[in-house]
């Protein structure tokens, strides 16, 4: 058994591991190592068919196996690895996407510096160090790179402002707080290709004249933190970090700071407070961090994806980047495509791709059998876009025009069983819980809006509430100090704009058309479908279900708390939900 002509890679980012990739990895090692090399790799983005195993032949052929269970793995080992027979029926197609920022994700071993160097890693830094800082900034300017953290601010402008400042020291901070609940672009990049982010920080540091960098990363991402630590150590060992990097006069160090679970700390001024060891509360801008940032020194704060683009731009040239995208939004953008979509996962698309293309071509359409109803961009700061506007191109300007935002890359697809009032309520409860409490509009305003929404979903709303909500939303957006409050009303305002009849049904008819709002629905057992197995009775935490194997099971509506546990316990789909009047 000497088959040196294969290499096997297992997708070992968080979602892969959660799907059992660690076991697959162990089994493979046991079965074929060391005659065949088995290596971990990062995220290929097709999270819906994890665990993934890729077989690469020496001649450059690549075969991707998806949803690898134990049986399938045995076949892959016996037929492909040991007997050269590709197991055709288990192959899954590679994602058809442009891969620029994600170029190395799923290709290299994220725990091995050599694997990164093999694909031209750190050659962008070499090029940068061989030219002047001004030339580096100019290359980024020609590329047209804009911040991927949400606001889309031109990266070269930030850098040249910091460059011009005469104050020392200066700092570079990588914002890896990724607070949007429902987005994982930055996690995937950090777990799959940590050296790209380090290289981006180094290039930024060289460009502005800094010697110290920080990565502020969410504590909820333990694997990302672990791989970053390892990458920093490796970079130090190879003089890619530290003193006189690669034989030049450039010195640079990077420290990791773990976030401690506060969404607002993703906002740049709050993030600075947090690194300084204080409560993470935003402050007024100006002064901007490029003038007065960390410890009042000039500081450039960039998002993970922004920084991951930098080494590729330096290495390949600005023209390779800006051949993609639109005139004002160049390049590609990474999105976390989730919700009711078949191919949920990480996608990278050229700016200007339409929403319909994203949902139906890349996403493969709706997974639930329902209809495409809406898509939510930008998480708690973003807007809900109705299916009718599916022809809208995804770029900074077009999205802003219809009341949504690009955001950092969360894209949530919703089918027609989703209640839009519930969606607005969800995001507002998030915003009001995460409001740091410093400014009144945000603190009180988000709470007031949430109270009204709670009332409406409980079937106690009045028509007048809708006007109050609109008015409050506009005031909070105008009166808040930081982006959290300024954008928190977006989900509410866009759902009100595009889905008003749904709000009216809750108010006028006391009905939730999507059958989601607990106070407005009933659970009933369909006696024809029920096989009297009794599982629902066991599952009910409040003993609302009566009956026995002989007589029919029934739900006592006055006891039922509508938790839905019975529905998930029923093997025969015999428990139906009706969107009736307010259940009393």
């Amino acid at each position, binding site marked *: 058994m000497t088959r040196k002509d294969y290499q096997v890679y297992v997708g070992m980012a968080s979602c892969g591991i959660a799907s059992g990739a660690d076991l697959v990895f162990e089994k493979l090692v046991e079965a074929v190592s060391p005659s065949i090399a088995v290596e971990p790799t990062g995220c290929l983005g097709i999270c819906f068919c994890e665990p993934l195993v890729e077989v690469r032949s020496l001649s450059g052929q690549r075969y991707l196996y998806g949803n690898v269970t134990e049986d399938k793995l045995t076949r892959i080992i016996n037929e492909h690895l040991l007997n050269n027979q590709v197991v055709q029926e288990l192959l899954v197609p590679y994602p058809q996407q442009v891969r620029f920022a994600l170029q190395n994700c799923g290709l290299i071993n994220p725990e091995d510096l050599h694997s990164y160097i093999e694909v031209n890693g750190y050659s962008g830094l070499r090029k940068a160090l061989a030219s002047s800082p001004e030339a580096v900034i100019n290359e980024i300017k020609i590329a047209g790179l804009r911040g991927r953290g949400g606001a889309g601010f031109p990266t070269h402008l930030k850098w040249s402002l910091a460059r011009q400042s005469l104050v020392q020291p200066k700092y570079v901070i990588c914002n890896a707080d990724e607070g949007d609940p429902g987005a994982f672009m930055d996690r995937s990049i950090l777990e799959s290709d940590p050296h790209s982010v380090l290289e981006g920080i180094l290039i930024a540091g060289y460009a502005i004249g800094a010697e110290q960098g920080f990565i502020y990363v969410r504590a909820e991402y333990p694997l990302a933190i672990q791989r970053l630590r390892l990458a920093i150590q490796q970079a130090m060992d190879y003089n890619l970090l530290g003193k006189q990097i690669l034989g030049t006069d450039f010195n640079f160090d990077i*420290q990791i700071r*773990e976030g401690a679970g506060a969404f607002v700390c993703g906002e740049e001024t709050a993030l600075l407070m947090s690194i300084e060891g*204080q409560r993470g509360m935003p402050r007024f801008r100006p002064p901007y961090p490029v003038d007065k940032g960390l410890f009042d020194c000039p500081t450039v704060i960039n998002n993970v994806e922004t920084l991951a683009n930098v080494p590729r731009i330096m290495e390949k040239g600005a023209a390779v980047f800006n051949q993609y995208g639109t005139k004002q939004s160049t390049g590609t953008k990474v999105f976390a495509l989730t919700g009711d979509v078949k191919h949920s996962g990480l996608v990278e698309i050229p700016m200007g791709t339409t929403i319909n293309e994203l949902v139906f071509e890349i996403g493969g359409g709706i997974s639930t059998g329902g209809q495409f109803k809406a898509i939510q961009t930008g998480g708690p700061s973003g807007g809900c876009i109705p299916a009718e506007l599916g022809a809208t191109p995804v770029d900074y300007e077009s999205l802003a025009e219809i009341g949504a935002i690009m955001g950092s890359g969360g894209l949530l697809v919703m089918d027609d069983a989703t209640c839009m009032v519930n969606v607005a309520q969800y995001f507002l409860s998030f915003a009001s819980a995460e409001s740091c409490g410093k400014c009144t509009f945000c603190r009180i305003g988000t709470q007031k809006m949430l109270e009204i929404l709670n009332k409406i979903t409980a079937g106690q709303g009045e028509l007048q509430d809708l006007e109050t909500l609109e008015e409050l939303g506009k005031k909070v957006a105008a009166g808040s100090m930081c982006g959290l409050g300024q954008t928190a009303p977006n989900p509410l305002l866009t759902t009100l704009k595009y889905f008003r009849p749904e709000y009216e049904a809750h108010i006028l008819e006391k009905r939730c058309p999507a059958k989601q709002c607990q106070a407005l629905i009933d659970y009933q057992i369909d006696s024809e479908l029920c096989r009297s197995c009794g599982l629902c009775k066991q599952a009910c935490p409040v003993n609302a279900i009566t009956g026995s194997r002989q007589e029919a099971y029934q739900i006592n509506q006055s006891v039922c708390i509508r938790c839905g*546990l019975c529905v998930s316990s029923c093997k025969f789909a015999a428990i139906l939900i009706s969107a009736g009047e307010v259940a009393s």
Partner: protein
Amino acid sequence: MERIDQIVKKHQQTISPTIPILQEIQAIYGYVAPEFLVRVAELIDVPLSTLYGVVTFYTQFRLEPLGKNHIQVCHGTACHLRGADQVFHAIEYESQTSAGEFSVEKVACLGCCSLAPVANVNGKIHGNLTADQARKLVKKLKS
């Protein structure tokens, strides 16, 4: 307390060490006991009230110890949409009979949204959960 002194010493070189120190204490003890805070305040010469301010601002920090089993139910957007509430209910009901053994909390996105709904049970992520499976998971831990 010696341990606390060591941790503080280790972070002496760190720029503004407060949060990293508290994080390491929590990583070791599972929570930051008030008496630890008093000691840290002394050592790094920061007012105790400031430390309390920090600990209460960030949701990560706990002033009380965790139960034997620690369950985080994701309430991020993708999980919310795919039934996180039901999963949470199931886990809460199943675990409430064994007081002190379980710490169940809601957290924002765990970063595995494609597997929604997701829960982190004692450090391992479980995806595509139904309420029924969630209950069974807790049941297993009880025995």
